[in-house]
């Protein structure tokens, strides 16, 4: 009962903050709404006994990625709201389309079926601790997908390095005649 109430609370807050994220005029406020959203998603993970995921959700998404978003927002420094032309001129048409989509989503709900029970029921996870269970699964059963994901990330990192380095070399060529730092000769 308490679990369900907490789930309801988390779910409602997630929906609410997601809407607010879109509605807020100020991008920093939007980012904060996303922060609250991530927080409640972590709450959902906690309700599912996935405490490792909950912590990682906060550390990685809230603590790192969102902070980087804020960084970008501050550096871009949007003083005025960017005005974009509407794709569809009519308000009614867009409302109709979104209502239809909503009905479709709701209509799908009854067909949602729980998957088959896996190797890790709640009791086993509690006994093994979630962190360990996840580590075992990732590094044995799902090793290949994990490595592929790692490789893709590595490519992204190398790409980022290459892009950054090009800029830096140009800058260094411009500054090539500046004296080297470290030691300084003083004539007396």
């Amino acid at each position, binding site marked *: 009962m308490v679990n369900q109430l907490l789930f309801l609370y988390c779910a409602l807050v997630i929906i609410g903050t997601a809407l607010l994220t879109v509605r807020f005029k100020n991008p*920093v406020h939007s980012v904060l709404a996303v922060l609250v959203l991530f927080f409640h998603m972590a*709450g959902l993970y906690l309700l599912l006994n996935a405490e490792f995921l909950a912590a990682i959700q906060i550390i990685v998404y*809230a*603590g790192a990625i969102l902070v980087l978003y804020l960084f970008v927002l501050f550096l871009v420094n949007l003083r005025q709201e960017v005005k974009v032309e509407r794709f569809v001129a009519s308000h009614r048409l867009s409302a109709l389309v979104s209502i239809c989509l909503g009905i479709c989503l709701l209509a799908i709900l009854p067909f949602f079926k729980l998957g088959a029970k896996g190797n890790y029921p709640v009791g086993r996870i*509690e006994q093994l*601790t979630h962190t360990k269970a996840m580590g075992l699964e990732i590094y044995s059963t799902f090793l290949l997908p994990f490595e592929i994901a790692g490789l893709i990330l590595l490519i992204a990192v190398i790409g980022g390095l290459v892009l950054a380095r090009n800029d830096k070399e140009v800058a260094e060529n411009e500054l090539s005649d500046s004296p080297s730092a470290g030691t300084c000769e003083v004539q007396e």
Partner: protein
Amino acid sequence: MMTIWSSWIWESKNHEHCLPAGESMHYLIIVLQIALLLAIVLLHVAYVTYFERKIIGHMQVRLGPMLVGWHGLLQPIADGIKSFFKEDIIPEQADKPLFLAAPIICLVTMLTSLAVLPFARGWVLADINIGLLFIFAMSSLASYGIILAGWASNSKYTFLGGMRSMAQVISYEIPLGLSLVGVMMLSGSLNLSEIVAAQGTSLFSTYLFPQCIGFFVFFIAMLAETNRVPFDLPEAETELVSGYITEYSGMRYAMFFMAEYIGMMVMASIGTVCFLGGWNGPFAIPFFPPFWFILKVYGFLFLFIWIRATLPRYRYDQLMALGWKVLIPLALLNIFLTGLFKVLVS
């Protein structure tokens, strides 16, 4: 809220052990424990500021506070009363809700981290399995308070302070986390009580010696994470007036102050738990099991203050170079060596 929540989650797992009639009593006891812990910690915060002023004063051949009470012993209380009754100034151009929320975010996240610290065997509010990660999560959230304070004040000094803090916290969270991975690998757990238990009771079986590289990295990253000298760039008085807290006054300023000192204490506790063997000491103290834990935390706090009295501030590019080019490779090397050691031993 998170404290109660996480402890509730933990409680719900041990639901079978509790009698339904005793349940409300149980929650009452937890609330009382939280209140007691908060009171003790806030009192500590007050007197850490006092001892910081005293120790730095004597290190600089001065006296420090002397007038309020015997040798200034009542100074922190006077300061507290003063900041409580001071005018709360909100700049006209500030983003008001965020300006008001920022110090609360800072303080609450820091206080929440206290919930998972084991002060002695069984002396822990929420003995959760991911204690270490929880601390990281909370300390990364605390940076939001600083960033938002910097942004919402709508002043260039606070904004620069907030930006610096943001870059610093992101950079130093990585070596901080990586330096503790070695501890996690050796103890095989993220639960702080189990990490202490895995270290054994003697000084020489603590992780200080096998994880000396990890401890070195952790210590420096800890200084940076708590914005202490020599990494206090976000609040550098000489260049940014007071960084992100320039526009704050009265109680809100005091809240940032408290958050900083609680952060110091939390980090000192993590260092004690992960590297110095937590509550274990050369001999057991009857009636007061957390004695050694508290003594070690005091040692860490003294070190914080001692370093503040000694070292000048780093330059910003040096700070970044140290974090990314020295500490992260060292922490990775430490993980590699620990893994190699474990493979060879087993």
